[in-house]
């Protein structure tokens, strides 16, 4: 299976040993994507529980969680000194650390790796901030290509309704206030989410994202997710990889 993330620049591997890393991978990588409050974290949590109960070795990795980089990201956000370029780079650094220390070793060890948000989040957000498309895609060209990338799609109004009524305060970068689409944080959030969603939609075909209708009930969505995971990851004998 071709394990290189960017179809166009296969020879542009970041590190000489990247190819061998990719080929040695024996586990499976499943990622969830979508705009804020699309329900993806709930779904991956339920998938995680199910895989464990079925006896699989599961490793979970979350966006923006590298202990090495966290302090810097936090500082940058707090002081509001991150530009679209440094915002993009610091998240790529976080992703690189998790790829090197968590995702790749876990895959080589044969685990099923679940990731809450992946490189697609960076593509969507960074491009919504006006960062050049080819630049950010080159940045992430070292990423391992997922076996399944679920995209939880909810109409913009649903997401806005959920987030604007559900939570008191929107955060500065989350609302895209740094690029100044509007002085009003709620209005800015709407415009920014709209852009992000358009980017996600445009990636469905390009990267073969598996779209899940996020307006369905939690149970319906989860049933579909489990069905697809079973189907796509089953080997000749119908066993998922990573089973202990």
């Amino acid at each position, binding site marked *: 299976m071709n394990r290189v993330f960017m179809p166009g620049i296969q020879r542009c591997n970041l590190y000489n*040993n990247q190819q061998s890393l990719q080929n040695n991978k024996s586990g499976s990588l499943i990622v969830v994507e979508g705009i804020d409050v699309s329900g993806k974290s709930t779904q991956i949590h339920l998938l995680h529980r199910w895989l464990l109960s079925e006896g699989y070795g599961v490793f979970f990795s979350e966006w923006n969680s590298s202990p090495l980089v966290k302090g810097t990201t936090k*500082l940058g956000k707090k002081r509001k000194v991150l*530009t679209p370029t440094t915002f993009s780079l610091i998240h790529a650094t976080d992703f690189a650390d998790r790829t090197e220390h968590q995702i790749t070793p876990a895959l080589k060890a044969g685990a099923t790796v679940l990731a809450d948000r992946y490189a697609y989040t960076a593509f969507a957000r960074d491009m919504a901030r006006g960062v050049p498309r080819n630049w950010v895609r080159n940045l992430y060209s070292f990423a391992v290509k997922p076996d399944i990338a679920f995209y939880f799609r909810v109409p913009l109004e649903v997401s806005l309704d959920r987030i604007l009524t559900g939570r008191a305060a929107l955060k500065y970068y989350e609302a895209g206030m740094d690029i100044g689409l509007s002085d009003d944080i709620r209005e800015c959030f709407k415009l920014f989410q709209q852009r992000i969603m358009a980017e996600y939609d445009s990636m469905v075909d390009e990267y073969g994202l598996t779209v899940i209708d996020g307006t369905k009930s939690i149970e319906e969505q989860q049933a579909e997710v489990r069905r697809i995971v079973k189907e796509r990851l089953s080997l000749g004998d119908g066993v998922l990889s990573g089973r202990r």
Partner: protein
Amino acid sequence: MEGDSLLAKFRFYGEGLKDVNLDSLSGRLIVLEGPDSVGRSTQMCLLREWLESLGHAVSDTGLTRSELTQEGLDQAKSGHTLGRKTMSLFYATDFADRLENQIIPALRAGYYVLSDRYFYSICARDIVRGADPQWLEGVYGFALVPDMVLYLKTDVEDLVPRALYGKGFNYWESGMDLAAGEDFFDSFCVYQSRVIKELNLMSERYGFVNINASNEPSVIFNDLKEAIKPILTNGVVDY
């Protein structure tokens, strides 16, 4: 000052930063490159004094001095847990922060920006650690093309005594993470010669002005001044 506006036209290596109006950058960007321990900081001080004596406002900046990443990078490097891709991207973040928050504002204000190294050194170190040069060139597409890159060129034989009697051999400058030699000395020689080889390649690729760094500091300083003179704007006093 007609010639000035012609000289002041900056450009980016790649697609660049979309919010930066290049026409508004009226300063000069001069980079001093060279391996560790080659004597860059001494020359930086001399150049700063000289430019100020001519009436130019000078801003200086060096690697890993970004407010955003200083602490995180120091911490990461002290733990030796920094993976190679992570290191590449952490340094790129640092460079971008310095470019956007220090260098570009200073250029906008008409300063002479003296940069103690630029992304070339970072790339040389990354390439020695196995990074793909093509990937790195893409990553640094947001960088401004400097007015001039002065390269303090030397070989590893010349560096050894400078490092030894200067700060001593340190872990990263000796490339100890690469396990290239038995001890700090062996590793330093192997690692620094590889870095120098990469810098020499970049010198040709990016058109650095090579300055022989095996000379006495005063000779080097004179060579640097001679190299810079053609791009100087009119100062308050004649040089």
